[in-house]
Structures are given as C-alpha cells and as structure tokens.
C-alpha cells in the first residue's frame, strides 16, 4: 500500500523526521516537499534505508516516489 506524506511548508530536518515515522515496514511512499534542499536530504535518508527514489516536479513543488528495493 502506498503511503503519502505531505511535508510541504516544512524545512529540514522536519520532512526527514516525518519520513522516519513511516518508513519502517513501508513498501512505497509518496513524499511531497517544496524545496530542493529537502529533496536532497530526504533522498539520502531514503536510500540509506533501502529505497529507490524518483523525483518529479520542480520549482517549489516536488513529488518524490520512494520504493523499497
């Protein structure tokens, strides 16, 4: 089941902390963030936790798709 985490309007490390709460046991997560900085930080965190990350969107609206490898 896909989980959606809306981290729009939050600055680092809040999106990572939100992600951390749901990442255990998840297979697919859609993560919404609004800054490139958060994209980079969350990508690193997700990859470290065994997820493949794809990013769509840009300019203040990013949709990150995290899939368990």
């Amino acid at each position, binding site marked *: 089941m896909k989980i959606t985490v809306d981290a729009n309007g*939050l*600055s*680092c*490390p*809040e999106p*990572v*902390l939100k992600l*951390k709460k749901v990442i255990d046991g998840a297979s697919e997560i859609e993560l919404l963030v609004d*800054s490139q*900085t*958060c994209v*980079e*930080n969350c990508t*690193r*965190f997700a990859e*470290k936790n065994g997820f493949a990350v794809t990013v769509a969107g840009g300019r203040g609206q990013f949709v990150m798709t995290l899939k368990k490898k």
Partner: protein
Amino acid sequence: MDMRNLKKFTACGGCVAKLPQGMLKDVLSQIPKFDDPNLLVGFDTSDDGAVYKLTDDIAIINTLDFFPSMVNDPYLFGKIAATNALSDIYAMGGAVVSALNIVCFPEDEDPAILGEILRGGAEKVLEAGGVLCGGHSINDEEPKYGLSVTGVVHPDRIMRNNNCDIGDKIILTKPLGVGIITTAYKAGEASQESYEQAIKGMQRLNKYAFEIAKNYRIHSCTDVTGFGFLGHLNEMTAPGYSISVEASNVLYIKEAEKLAAEDIITGGGIKNRKFLQDKVSLRGLSVPIEEILFDPQTSGGLLISVHPDDANALLEALSGQDPKCCIVGEVIPREDINVIVTP
C-alpha cells in the same frame, strides 16, 4: 510560558534561518559601491560588523542580527538572540556601547510573551556593559527578535576576520553542533542533556573570551554563526594563505554526531555545504562529522587566529572559563583551496 502554540513557529530558527551565502554575495555585488575613506570595514570583506572611523582614536562598529526563535522559552530566546547580536562587536575587537531592539511579533498574541523576550535581551545588554536605548516593532505572524548594536574600537585595534599570519593557530571557543541539537530537540529527537549544553553555550557572551584573547598576539577574529564552522573559517582565509583543520581536535556536542548519522541535519547546513563545495576540501572524514562542521550555529563561539607561540597559553587561559575551547587548526601557505580538513 511557551511559544510553541503561536500560529507560526518555525522549526528552523536562530542563525539556521539565514539566507544562503552565495545568494547574498550575488545580490550585494549589484548594489552601488560606497567610497568613503572613513569606512574602514564594509560588507565587501564579509566581516562581522561595519566599522566607521570618527576620529583617529575612535571608530564605531555597527551590527545587527535578528531571527526566529530556536527555543520554546521566550525569555531564553531573548537572551540567545541578544547574545548573538552582541557577539559581532567582540568579533571586531570592540566594546558594546548601546543597543536597539528589533521586534517582529503577532499583534493578537499574548504581550507577556513579548515581555519575556525583551527582558531576556535587556539582561544581556546589561551584562555586556551596554545601554538599551530604544527599538522598533512590527506586526508579524512569526516572532523574531534581535538587536542593532553600536560598539567602539580604536581604529588600530580592529579585529578583521581575514588578517591571519602564516603559522598562526586557530582557536574555537564554543563546541559545535548547536544547530543540529536545537532543531532535533524541538522534534523530540535530542536529549535534555545535549539541549542544556547547547543553550548554555548560546547564552554565553563572547565578551569573556575576547577580554582574555586581547592580551595575546591575536591577528584575526570572527564568530561562528549561520554559515557554520567551515563557512566562517572560509571567510578567515585570504589570497595569501589557506587554513588547515584537524577535525579530531574540533569539540562538538557528542549527540550531534549520532543525530547527523540519522540525517537529522538542518536545511542551513545543506546550503552551507553546497556553497563551500569548491572552497573546502574534506579528506577522509565521516559524513556525520562533516555535517557538524557545516552545521549553522546560533550564537556560536569565536574563531581566533593567534601567534603560534601564544596559542597554548591562550587556550589555557580561555579554558578556565570555557572548558570547551580547542585549537582546531593553523594558517598555512596558500594552497589551491581555502580550507583543508583532515581527520
């Protein structure tokens, strides 16, 4: 009293909230240049405060700093914001004369909270030996506070940030990791003990360290704030020399390393890393330690460039008051990069 319930209460307060360094440099390069022989230090050298010569014996230092809170207690916020703003005067080698409050506060919130912020700030101005003599307040959803401070210095004794001599040792007077700890603490991820350590440092006036340091052969001084340890160290470099750092000598709040390993780092730290990527070389460091070196500090310590023969004596004198002082590196002949960090 607690500020957590205010409508807009940022997670990334303090100097973490600074605009990125690269952006500022681009914007400032586009505004008119001021050419006044009495302006001894302006913003062209990214120094801590501006210095304007009034007479041959007296120059005034102007500086201001304000930011959203990084703590929930308004009184503590006032103390930290004021300590941070006052610090630039010491980093320029001066003494505090007067200060004005800078206030942003929501008009529909409890005025007692604002009262606590201002009480904390005023106490620090008093401790610094200055006079609080006014201020300006704006209605704003998100509370912000700081000071505009005026100091004085003899024009011959200005402490620029990039006037080091090759061979100098660099001393840091407060432990790093404050940005990571305060941000993580707000999210319930850092311990009370680490948080206490962070706020203790943030409330400590750099006045005490500078008063000791000025008795030694010091050549440059700056304070560590939003651009992080490496960002401010980079500003200490000049075309004639580089600075080398031994990371194992740099003191930091221990838990910050564990938090950084879990990617609990601030947006400000990520921006600092990006800005510094071609200015700093990091050889063989663990990622969490790198994050600590990039971590934005609020009301951080001084970085002091001191004659090598005075370094140990100064460290010893400082350590009596600030036990977390450390010699972090030295000024070396110019290399192709500004700052070289090894484990």
